[in-house]
């Protein structure tokens, strides 16, 4: 499809979509959201773009291929197991680091976040792969 309205809209919606996706990812541990939802949301943005442009244009603009996303995603997932192994804990046990910004605000970073990030990227890659293959197949 080649719709001008959608094309212009997609430019402005991009930030919105990606922001949503990343927020969903980051808040997922405490509120609704998470890697799956975030990844699907991010993919949804690109799907939206394919409706506006042709999928070939999107593919060229994407710079990173879906395969790479999938690989990086899985790598992140696997890397998230590393800290627990290195610290001698059982495999896949969460390791957490917390920073206190002020007396009330504490930021906690842990391997589950990395894990979720991996899921995010992988799910996005998978969906993109689905999308591109199905749309370019003749």
């Amino acid at each position: 499809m080649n719709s001008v309205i959608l094309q212009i809209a997609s430019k402005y919606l991009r930030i919105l979509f990606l922001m949503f996706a990343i927020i969903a990812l980051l808040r997922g541990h405490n509120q609704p959201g998470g890697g799956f939802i975030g990844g699907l949301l991010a993919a949804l943005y690109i799907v939206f773009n394919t409706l506006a442009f042709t999928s070939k244009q999107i593919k060229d603009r994407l710079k990173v291929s879906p395969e790479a996303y999938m690989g990086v995603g899985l790598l992140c997932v696997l890397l998230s197991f590393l800290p627990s192994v290195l610290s001698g804990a059982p495999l896949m046990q969460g390791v957490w680091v917390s920073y206190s910004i002020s007396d009330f605000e504490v930021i906690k970073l842990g391997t589950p976040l990395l894990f979720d990030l991996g899921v995010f990227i992988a799910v996005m890659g998978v969906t993109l792969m689905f999308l591109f293959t199905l749309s370019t197949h003749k």
Partner: protein
Amino acid sequence: MILVLILYLLLAFALFLIPKKVSKYTPVFIALVQLLVFGLFLSFLPDIQNGKTISSLVEWMPRLGLNLEFTLDGLSMVSVLLITFIGFLVFIYANTYMSSYQGTTRFYFYLLLFSASMLGLVLSSNFIQMFIFWELTSILSFLLISFFNENEQARKAAFQSLFVTGLGGLCLLVAIILIGSIVGSYSLTDWIDKAELIKNDGKYLPILLLVLAGVFTKSAQFPFHFWLLGAMQAPTPVSAYLHSATMVKAGIFLLARLYPILGGTQEWINIITPVGAITMLIGAYLAITQIDIKQIFAYTTISALGILVVLFGISTELSIKAAFVFLFVHAFYKASLFMLAGYFVKLTGSRIINSYGGILRKNLLGLIIVAVALLSMAGIPPMFGFIGKELIYEAKFEAPWLSSLLLILGILTNVLMVAVSLLVLFKLYLGEAKFDLGVATKKYKLLLVSPGILAVLSLGLGLFPDTLSGIIEPALSYIYSGEAVIKLKLWHGFNTILLLSALTMLLGIFLFALTYKNKRLIKGWQRMNVRLFSINFNRSFSKGLSSFIKISAKNTHFIQHGYIRYYLTTIIVFSSLLLLFQLYITRGWEINTNFSLQPYYISGVVCIITFSSLISVFSKDGLFTITAMAVTGYGISLIYLYYSAVDLAITQIIVETLMVVMFVLVLRKLPRFIVVSSRATKIRDGIIALTFGLIMAMLALKALNVDIHPSIADFLVENSYTKAHGKNVVNVILVDFRALDTLGEVTVLVIAALGVFTLLNVKKVRK
């Protein structure tokens, strides 16, 4: 011992590295290695004679009772010596014999591997391990029979032998596992310790039958003997090595190996003896009318194997002793005869014995060797065969069961053997020489070396038989677990046995005189045999096999018909029945949920879902179907949302959206038409579907009332924040508690994506 096996293995693979120039000498080199190993094992003989056993054990999977266990005891000693010694001779022989063929490296590779697996077989004291070697010998036999693989008959024969021995091997495996389950181990020593336990077990008879299936197929007993005849398609060194001296004796070896464990019972005697007796008689009887020299020797081999089986069946100390002596006797003369057969084939280019007329007239050395081997087969003094035959008569004479019948059958067999030997001998010597053999005789002179050595042994051991008792005694003491003393003599003095021998010889000569030159009689005899044994085992085997294939193809076509919907119908109907059965046997539950339509908006959502799914099911338009399907999905996500599953609802909505987009992407290029089934089909499918839906609804209703206490959820909820620092329990489960599952799931997704990618990007192939 493991080192020896490894040496063989390395040597076998190293064969391929040998440069062409020196490859002429490889068989000689291998022969020397065999001789070396022979010497090595011989050096253990004094230890073995003193009642020691040498074992080595490498633990592999001790918990499953799978270890690499090797034991050199009296029994394996006998076999090892035979294998390496005959192996040595066969390689020497093959050096000349095989030189004119292509692919000899492959041949020696197989043959060497066969030596190794045969050694492994006899040295194993773990039965699972032994079984592996057992199967290896079958496979290598297959490869060696089909060595001339451009010959269809050879391929057929090879397949036949593999099929028959493989079938027996499977039976054997079952037997081994059964015994293993009784004893709780696969180790030989444990089995011997618990022999009484096995013999008194209720499963003893099936075990015995299964073991015997393995033995009889391997050792070509009636009615499995036909594969050995086909196996004569193999190059002659193979026939000499595998199909007369070693591999076919593996069954006999197994009988001996299992004798202390299973042997000596009434069932053992009653089953084994008749089978062996029939085999020995039929083998000898059919040998006499054959005209193909290798077939003659194959039949006499079958007969000899029958004799060995009978002797193990009789189960007296004397018979076992006779069996071991005859093992050597037969190995010596039969290997020699096969090698000689190969020699004649090389000389004349034919396997038909009638065309050989007088080829040994001017070949004195050949004549002597042939005569010695044949006379040993006939059991005429002073050959080693005579001693063997005397012992056999004696054993049968004193057999506790059916002794007179066995004796008569034995005499008949030997009469036939004598006649066959004389027939072959005279056909080779008398008659006009039809070929000018001067050059060929010279060329193949070296082929006489190995049979020559064996002939010397046959004669020498006939004169000084006691040399062998040192080797046989330890083997006997394995079987009777005590001291065994054997005195082998050529001259036993005048007694019944000698009388019987003389009678045999006379009758044999008479039979020979009757049949020699009397072509009519032979022809008539052949015709009678054809009619008498109208079951051609070979043909009925192939027929049985092809009809088996036909039946299975038919069945496969019946089950694998290629219609997805019928596969699915089968699966669904069957699982409906299973579920129904399960619901029936757990009936008697009550529904403690009241029916209500509150809250009404969810009822409304359910209504919409119902409506849209009905549209989706019955619509004839693709796009419409998909839209309706999406409405269903969104409706379900509303249900999730209402019932406290926020994450689920979000995921469902996004997935549904993505799915619709992808469908549209594909559907743009797909046809709009939908194949319309007939009305009857629709009704049938509708009934199946409704039944399944009803059953699943009942299941869901039941699931509602199942309450599991304490739920794992309690643990998850309690520890979600304290241990995993997350407030969203669902997400914490996904990324922390059950992270491995999620990893698996993401991997599956990635694989699916790659699958889609490869599926749609491979080059289009059309039929």
